[in-house]
């Protein structure tokens, strides 16, 4: 990749893509976190199907909703990308896989719980799993191109 850098998208393009995806994840996690704090215990609604995922014991770690970890995770991703866009030091992005890879496996675990343990679908959780996966792939790629 680095040898044909002229014909591949510039690192900036990759980082911008990374930022866009992190924003999607941030919005999603923000929504879930807000729902958690606003909506008391999520119930099953006529319109949205059932929110039992958010009700389950797996939706929080201690008193902290899992979605809040998502908000923090995506915030870190965004800040790191902007640091790179600002100072262009590879170090800003080099260590991201240490976060994105565990986050990916955590997402996988959540999807597993959703499908096989809680047996319910939460579309927002799928979105988050998708963005986490993309961020992991991008972060692995970025550490080679920046």
């Amino acid at each position, binding site marked *: 990749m680095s040898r044909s850098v002229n014909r591949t998208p510039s690192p900036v393009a990759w980082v911008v893509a990374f930022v866009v995806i992190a924003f999607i994840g941030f919005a999603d996690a*923000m929504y879930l976190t807000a729902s958690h704090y606003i909506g008391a215990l999520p*119930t099953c609604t006529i319109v949205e199907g059932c929110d039992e995922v958010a009700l389950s014991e797996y939706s929080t770690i201690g008193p902290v909703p899992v979605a809040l970890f998502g908000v923090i995770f995506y915030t870190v991703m965004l800040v790191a990308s*902007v640091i790179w866009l600002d100072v262009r030091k590879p170090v800003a992005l080099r260590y991201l896989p240490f976060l994105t890879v565990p986050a990916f496996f955590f997402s996988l675990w959540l999807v597993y719980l959703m499908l096989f343990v809680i*047996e319910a679908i939460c579309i927002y959780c799928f979105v988050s799993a998708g963005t986490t996966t993309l961020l992991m792939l991008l972060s692995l790629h970025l550490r080679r191109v920046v």
Partner: protein
Amino acid sequence: MNKRFALWGGLVLAMAVVAVVMVRLADEEPQLPQPERAAINSNSDAAAVNGNNGATAILAPRENDWKKGNPDADVVVVKYSDFQCPACRFYASMDDQLGKELADDVLFIYRHFPLRNFQHSRLAARYTEAAGRQGEFWKMHDLIFINQQRWSRTDAEPIFRHFAESLELDMEQFDRDLEDPTLEERIDADYRDGQRLGVRAVPTIFINGEAIRSPNSLDAYRDLILSYK
């Protein structure tokens, strides 16, 4: 310097905008089409429907309600619920516990609000109603809730039948009752009442006519109920 300012300013602004929009979205309640929608707002702690006479009448205990507890209690808990909803299962177990603890002080009432997004909700409601005709509503209610995960994603009817048999119901009578259209009508009537009250999620719980914000622990639920004493 300008670039730096734009980058960081842009990030902070964009995150703030996204955060505000998402909080707004999360706060937005789906609107029910019913014109008689009672003033319920699940975001407020206890949205009162007291001022609404229609709601008061609907929530008054009825002769044919499924009740548990003291009929003369000062505190009346009316719950609109669905048998396949996991949150309802959670509340059913809390009601069961509190029904025993507070049997003298509280009257618990169960009303049907079977959501269409669940495959077996209505069937479960019919089975409890049919069991209820032989005096075993609550036992069927308990069996169905306790075993919810067993029947939710499979062919539920044989499992429900098995429950009916284990309660030693008169199965011939039971089958006739299952087919009785008035049984379905009763479930529909509960559902319509729930719609008039503005129920849009299950379980929706009313204590002495007030829609409450669903408590998320047994202790919180007990305290809330006792606060109405």
